[in-house]
C-alpha cells in the first residue's frame, strides 16, 4: 500500500535544508528534531534517513520531514533516497518515533525558558539595532512559534535573519527543539528596516 504514497519536496531558505511532505501522518500532531545519528536511536524513521550519505539532521513533524544535509550530493539525488526511506518506513508500520522518546524532551516550560533566554541574550539585543524584535509566541511539545516585529516585520532580509541567524542560535543550544515556525504577517509590517524597493 506504500506504492501510492505521495511525497513532495520543498526547499527551505537555508540551502542545506529541504522539507518533504507526505500525504499521510508520520508523527501525528507531534514534532521531534534529531541533530545526529546517535540521537536517532529511538526513531526508526530518523535512523533510515541518517543512513543516507550526507544527512546531518532530521526534523519529523506530523506529516513532514525536514532534512538537513551536508556533502556534495545534489538535492534531487538525496530527495529520491529520502522518498525511498519514507516509503520503506511506512511499509513497516513502525512508529516514526518511539513514544518513550518524548520523555526525554524537556518540559514545555523549560524549553520556553531556554528559547526565551536565547532570544533575550543572543538575538533581541542585536536585532534591536534595526528596530526589530523576535518574540516567542508559544512552545507546543518541542515546536517553537516565533513572530518578528518592528523593523523585522516585512524587512527584505527577514528570511535571512531568521533562517541563517535565529534558527542556528536556537538549534545549536537546544537540539531538542523541533520545528521553528515564523508566524509573522510580513505584508502588514509598516516600518520594515529594509523595505524592498530596488530592481
Amino acid at each position, binding site marked *: 500500500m506504500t506504492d501510492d504514497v505521495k511525497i513532495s519536496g520543498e526547499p527551505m531558505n537555508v540551502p542545506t535544508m529541504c522539507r518533504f511532505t507526505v500525504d499521510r501522518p508520520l508523527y501525528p500532531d507531534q514534532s521531534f528534531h534529531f541533530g545526529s545519528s546517535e540521537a536517532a536511536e529511538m526513531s526508526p524513521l530518523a535512523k533510515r534517513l541518517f543512513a543516507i550519505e550526507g544527512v546531518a539532521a532530521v526534523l519529523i513533524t506530523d506529516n513532514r520531514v525536514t532534512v538537513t544535509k551536508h556533502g556534495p550530493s545534489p*538535492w534531487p539525488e538525496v530527495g529520491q533516497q529520502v522518498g525511498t526511506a519514507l516509503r520503506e518506513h511506512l511499509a513497516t508500520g513502525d512508529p516514526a518515533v518511539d513514544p518513550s522518546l518524548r520523555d526525554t524532551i524537556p518540559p514545555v516550560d523549560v524549553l520556553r525558558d531556554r528559547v526565551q533566554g536565547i532570544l533575550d541574550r543572543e538575538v533581541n539585543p542585536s536585532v534591536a539595532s534595526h528596530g526589530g524584535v523576535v518574540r516567542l509566541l508559544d512552545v507546543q511539545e518541542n515546536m517553537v512559534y516565533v513572530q518578528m516585529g518592528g523593523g523585522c516585520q516585512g524587512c527584505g532580509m527577514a528570511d535571512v535573519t531568521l*533562517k541563517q541567524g535565529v534558527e542556528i542560535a536556537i538549534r545549536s543550544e537546544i537540539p531538542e527543539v523541533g520545528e521553528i515556525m515564523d508566524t509573522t504577517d510580513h505584508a502588514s509590517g509598516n516600518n520594515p528596516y529594509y523595505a524592498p524597493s530596488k530592481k
Partner: protein
Amino acid sequence: MPRLLLMLPTRTYRTPALLAAAARCGVELTVASEEGSSVAHLNPAGFLTLPFSSPDACAGPALAFHDEYPVDAVIGIDDTVVEAAAVVARELGLPHNDPEAVAVARDKRRARERLAAADVPCPGFDWRRFEDPERARPPVFGFPAVIKPLSLSASRGVIRVDDHPGMVEAVGRLESIVDDESGSLIEEGFLVESFVSGPEVAIEGLLRDGQLQVLAVFDKPDPLEGPYFEETIYLTPSRLPAECQRALLESSRAACTALGLTEGAVHAELRITESGPVVIEVNPRAIGGLCSDVMRFGTGLRLEDILLHHALGDRAPLPDRVESAAGVLMLPVKSGGALLRVDGVAAAEAVAGVERVAITAHPGQQLSPWPEGGPYPGFVFARGETADEVERALHTADQELTLVFEGG
C-alpha cells in the same frame, strides 16, 4: 559542498527566490550585503558586508573572507551590485564579466556610445550636463525625443518631449528626480534620445563564454508611447513572428558583443521598427522586481536556478522554457502618497488564470506615479493556454485592485 557568495542589496525583492534556489542547488550560502546583518555574529560563515557602491573596495574584504571560507561561485543581483560582483569574481578567479564592461552597460551614455561605434542600431542620442545653460536646446535629430537619466532603472525619470517648451519643463523635472535619488553616482547629466516608435519587447538571456542564449522573449502589450514609460505587463512566449524574434536575438547578441559582456544574466529591451530592431538598453542583470517568477524551465526550474547553476560552473544545455503562456503585471501607480492598503486582492486572485497577487509595498510606504516612480506596489502573475488569455486575466485583475492612500 560548494560555497556560493550571493551578493544581495538589502532592499531587493529577490531574497526569498534566491535563497530557495540556493537551497535547491545544495550549496553552502553566504549572503553579502552593503550593510551588516544584525545577527551576523550567530553565523560568521553566513554573512559578509561589502561596500557595493565602491566595487573595487569589495575585493579586499571578499578575499579575506575567501581565505577563511573558500568561495566557489559569486552571483550579484540588481543593478547596484553587478559591478561589485564582477570585481569580486575576478579577484577570486571565478567566471566573471569584465567589470569595465559592466560599468559601461550600466551607464546609458557610455553604453550608447559603444553601441553606436559598433553599428548596433540604437536611438540617436545626445548627452548634456544639468548645469549646461543650453541643456534644453532642441536635439539635432528633432522632436519627438526622450530624456532619461544615465543610471536609474524601471523607466524612472524617462520622459517623452514633443517640443521645446515641453523639453524645458521635462528637464527640470528630471533634475528634481535625480536630486532626490540618493546613491545615483553617475547622474551628472542626462541623455536625450530620438523617440523610437514601435512595440517594445524584453529579452531575458544568459551569456555563457560570450554566447548569448535566450531564456525568454517578452512582449509588452501595453503601448509605451509616453509621455512616461511605466512598465506594466510582460507576456511570454512572444506573439511576434519567428523571423522577428530571430532579428531581436541577433541585435541583442550584437549589443552584448559591443558592450563586452560575456557571462551571466542579460536583460535587454528593444523596439521593433520598420527597419528592424532598435536596442534601447542591455543590462548585465536578470529581470527586475519579482518578475522572474513568471518563468519556468524544464521540470519546473526557476530563473534563479539557471543563474545559480551557471555561477557554479554548470555548462549543461539549458532547459527549454515551459510551454504554457505566462505573464506578470507590475501594479501601476496612478496617484501618489502614503499607502494605506490595497483593496481587491482576493477578487484579483479569483480571476481565472491568475496564479497569485503579491503586494510588496508596506502600509505607510510612499509611492509615486511615474516618471518619479519608485518601488512597485505589487505584482500579479497569471498563466494560461495562450498569451491572449493571460493578458486578459492580468487586465481583469488590475481592474479589481485599488491602491488606497492615506487621506485619499
